[in-house]
């Protein structure tokens, strides 16, 4: 009997040793909230944690290089990089906010800003930003829109990348067919029709009917209508404006006739794969998919175009389409965190980063560099952003549930319209009503805060 107990005891003891021996011991990086924000002694090394919200082999090595450069410039600051897979990053932040166990600095999408700031998770950067020598060189419209999106109008995110929706098309096929790349909506529909050749299993266009489709559809709708108010003066959504009804009928009407049958479940990857494997002549996406096209297609087989102009010749661009860095409120080292954020937002860092990931910087000096001017897709994007004929509309990203409405309510409804289960009018009225209800709740909450 005793021998048996001894054996069990030994096994348990060994296993505990094995397990605890592999542990990390006390957490070095746990940040207690509301702690005193003391400046470290000059010779004391400070460790800050940085969460990258879209990590992967295409991006992480560039952050590692930037961190190396930063640490060489600031030998008393250590940056611990933690890469988060894109699809689960928001969920990770949500749990970390609830548990008040946040990093010092993190990559934050602008659409998350309202949600995070209303939950008191972010550290305002205004004081640091106002003293920063490069403050006037960061796109002022983007800085302003970042302030506008939060209730207290403070700066909670330093933008370092601007994105823009464009059309990707096959210049070789267009030339071969003698079709002009579309500049207006009429030309767009004509091109889609002419480039469709079902005998070659080739379609003129591909609609994103699956996950993420609502974002793209919304941008196309406003690019067509030219409406720049997301809500009118009475708080009514413009989503179901008659112009949008007209557009969606024609646009989703392309489905199956000029676009593949599988479009109803098209997510980003499927849509891009259709274009990259030569099944589709044109897609709508943003400059971010450049890397995928350049891997799969040869030079001359892909090029960018602005979204078509409105009837009165205007480009319509959705605001808040930026990414950047936030400092989190639980940080014990706001000064060091700001040093890192301002380093990442500086012209050399923005230039290095955006050139390698194929996106547009927000720093004026980086925008003037040759790599921006020589890349066709970036040139197109810059020309739209700098055009006097460009107007902006700002969607309701300040409503904390804005993103979940699009993901969970609108995306499935696009499929309902494509499959004929819902009319366009029903779909857009429901979309508008959901947004209006959310806006009323948000407005009521803001009133209570005041």
């Amino acid at each position, binding site marked *: *009997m005793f021998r*048996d*107990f001894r*054996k*069990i005891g030994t*096994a348990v003891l060994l*296993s505990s040793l*094995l*397990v*605890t021996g*592999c*542990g*990390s011991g*006390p*957490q070095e*990086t*746990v940040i207690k909230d509301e702690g005193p924000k003391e400046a470290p002694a000059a010779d004391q090394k400070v460790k800050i*944690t940085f969460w990258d919200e*879209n*990590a*992967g*082999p*295409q*991006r*992480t*090595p560039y952050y590692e290089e930037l961190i190396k450069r930063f640490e060489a410039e600031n030998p008393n600051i250590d940056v*611990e*990089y*933690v*890469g988060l*897979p*894109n*699809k*689960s990053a928001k*969920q*990770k932040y949500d*749990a*970390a906010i*609830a*548990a008040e*166990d946040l*990093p010092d600095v993190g990559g934050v999408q602008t659409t998350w800003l309202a949600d995070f700031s209303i939950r008191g998770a972010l550290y305002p950067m205004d004081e640091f930003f106002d003293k920063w020598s490069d403050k006037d060189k960061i796109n002022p419209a983007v800085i302003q829109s970042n302030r506008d999106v939060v209730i207290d109008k403070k700066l909670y995110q330093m933008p370092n990348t601007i994105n823009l929706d464009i059309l990707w098309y096959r210049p070789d096929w267009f030339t071969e067919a003698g079709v002009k790349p579309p500049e207006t909506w009429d030309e767009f529909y004509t091109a889609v029709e002419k480039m469709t050749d079902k005998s070659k299993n080739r379609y003129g266009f591909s609609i994103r009917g699956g996950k993420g489709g609502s974002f793209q559809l919304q941008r196309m709708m406003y690019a067509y209508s030219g409406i720049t108010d997301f809500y009118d003066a009475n708080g009514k959504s413009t989503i179901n404006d008659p112009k949008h009804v007209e557009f969606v009928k024609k646009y989703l009407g392309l489905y199956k006739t000029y676009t593949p049958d599988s479009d109803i479940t098209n997510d*980003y*990857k499927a849509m891009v*794969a259709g274009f*990259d*494997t*030569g099944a589709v002549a044109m897609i709508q996406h*943003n400059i*971010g*998919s450049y*890397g*995928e096209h350049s*891997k*799969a297609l040869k030079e001359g087989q892909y090029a960018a175009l602005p979204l078509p102009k409105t009837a009165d010749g205007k480009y319509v661009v959705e605001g808040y389409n930026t990414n950047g860095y936030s400092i989190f409120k639980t940080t014990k080292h706001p000064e060091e965190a700001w040093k890192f954020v301002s380093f990442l937002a500086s012209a050399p860092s923005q230039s290095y980063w955006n050139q390698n990931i194929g996106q547009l910087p927000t720093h004026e000096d980086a925008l003037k560099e040759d790599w921006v001017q020589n890349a066709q897709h970036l040139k197109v994007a810059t020309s739209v952003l700098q055009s006097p004929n460009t107007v902006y509309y700002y969607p309701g990203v300040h409503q904390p549930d804005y993103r979940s409405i699009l993901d969970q309510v609108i995306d499935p409804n696009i499929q309902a319209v494509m499959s004929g289960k819902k009319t366009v009018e029903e779909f857009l009225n429901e979309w508008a009503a959901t947004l209006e209800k959310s806006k009323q709740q948000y407005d009521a909450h803001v009133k209570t805060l005041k």
Partner: protein
Amino acid sequence: MSTFQRNMDRLFVFYLPMAITVIFTLFPFYWTINTAFKPEGDIVKSPLEYVPSSFTLENFRVAWEGVGFSTYFQNSLLIAFCTVFFVLIFATLVGYALSRYRFKGKGAFMLLLLCTQFVPGAMLIIPLFLIFKSLGLISNPLSLIITYTTFQLPFNSILMNGFISNVPRELEEAAMVDGCNRLQVIFKVILPVLMPGIVATGVFTFIHVWNEFLFAFMLTNQEERFTLPIGLSYMMGEFNVNYGALAAGSVIALIPAILMFAYAQKHLVNGLGGAVKG
């Protein structure tokens, strides 16, 4: 019935459906392996190459060294083996108690064990995070081992109850007549007979832990502590999917599972049969 007729019947009733099932099941594996050894440019080339025209190990290098699979692999192995170890010990003891003892509320206890399976893991993330944070166990493999053991124990205890119930009581009684006490009976008599059940339970637990993403991601804030499923999800960025490295990573992640099934196959079939009978 002529021989020809018999052969045709066999072909259409047996061989053809079997062949279709095998192709249907194995094609995704073939495609993953095929993609893992293709250079990046060939993966999305049109027309698609069903047999690669060129061969590369670059995708494995990217996954193993670049993305850090070498570390994630070790972390996954450590967590999976420790969890299996604890689950097997506790599930055997709980299963034995359920099978051999009569006690008040036994039915309710079994029901309670089953009910734990209905709680969605996502609901428990924040409470678990807070508990482990207060214990200083965030980013520590111990937090995952405890979580997985807790989640796996109820189902595996019920499974083990089924296996143990199939072992004749007479065996135990004979051992006791020969002078064994209860613990000796469990370890010297029950355990050797229970091997198929232990293997089945161990394999189920291992596969579950090996593939688990949510808790591994949520309870870890340090990259060097991440596990394989997190490494795999790195390959799918917002705008970029590294199909080659994703396929190579999947092949790496598949190897232990395949080896384990290859070893445990025989026991597994016996084991599951036993559980069903119980």
